[in-house]
């Protein structure tokens, strides 16, 4: 059984920080940064736990992080 983790970003409703953090952690999120001005939390989570994050009260969206690469010159 492989345990795969995903880097995710989570947007939450206005005013739900920092309370929502406990619930996110309980749902499996290892919090990386809490972006208070934006109402966004980034972190890593096991892929199978992503639906649990989405059902946390106060969570608006959960998305995988994209990677960005500049083109070579």
């Amino acid at each position: 059984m492989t345990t795969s983790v995903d880097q995710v970003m989570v947007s939450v409703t206005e005013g739900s920080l920092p309370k929502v953090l406990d619930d996110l952690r309980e749902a499996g999120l290892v919090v990386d940064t809490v972006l208070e001005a934006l109402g966004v939390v980034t972190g890593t989570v096991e892929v199978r736990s992503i639906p649990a994050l989405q059902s946390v009260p106060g969570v608006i969206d959960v998305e995988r992080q994209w990677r960005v690469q500049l083109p070579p010159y």
Partner: protein
Amino acid sequence: MTDPVEEEFTGRFLVLLQEDAIDEGVAELGAIAGFDPNSGDLDPDTVQVFPELGVAVVSADPNLLTELNGAAERPGPVQIVEPERVVHLFDAAREEEEPSAEADESVLTWGLQAVGADISTATGKGVKIAVLDTGFEKNHPDFAGRTITTKSFITGEDVQDGHGHGTHCIGTSAGPRKPATAPGYGIAYEAEIFAGKVLSNAGSGSDGGILAGIDWAVSNGVAVISMSLGADVSPGTPYSQIYETVAQRAMAKGTLIVAAAGNASSRPAKVAPVGHPARCPSIIAVAAIDVNRAIAFFSSGTVDKIGQIDVAGPGVDVYSSFKLPEKYARLRGTSMATPHAAGVAVLIAEKTGARGFELWARLALTALRLPLPSTDVGGGLVQAP
């Protein structure tokens, strides 16, 4: 010209799987395409998996593409689904990409002249601009004496720009008008600069660092964020709901986000869609034009209802500052058009006091209309107030 059926497809699909979840990804594909990944010997005509690449090639009924795309859009191990393309030799590209040398750059770059910075009295004084990129060349002589706040969001790298791209974008948006060696190349030359390093010295980064950079900029009361970065996407890809939420919240707090549309087109044969995150409705997507006011061959464009070009800026043969020892470089890309637009937005912010959506409106409404499709250049070429 933008008709996607010009591309030839094999009828198979390329599926990008999450690197560390190949098995889960194949299982999800099996559930959609109707094969059992645990049957032992998979028919290579049905599915081929390249674990090192994290890619699977799947034969599936074209009607399943919607479901496959749905799997790619949901969080989970299936990341990107694309029809497999028939590839031809690239035989007739990039003709006449050298701009005709009619621009007089003895004093200012052609880009500054094209956006009317040379005849504007605005300087950007008192307005904060953040450039989220590969950092900043701290030893560049052209920036001595400027107020520059820096922060790195890349683990293990300080803000020093080991790439050059970030220093180039900072130069265009907020560099000097009268450096020791002409031409001048900076639009908002008295703006207060925030240089956030969200891309590594190798030019790569991820959403986590970019969002952290946006948060930093918003928290510091920055009026304009310039982001010459992005990821190419397939037509029809939904925009990120999270970036859209972030952009709306930033705008409500007085911070406007300007981002590069992308360089994925090969005009005239192919127009690629606006990339992530510029395709979000509340982020300004910037296209690139050349010195002749023609659309740059690489400039991504509006190909569907998601991801529309908002404005255009100079993005070919753009002279600006660079990391040492080179000090200066001429680059092209929507990456170069974006800081032109961001710099002009700073000038408008200074002159009118506008922030957020009012600033967006003023930037868009004052753009110089161009005799080009709005799908390529939006409202036109940004103009200094």
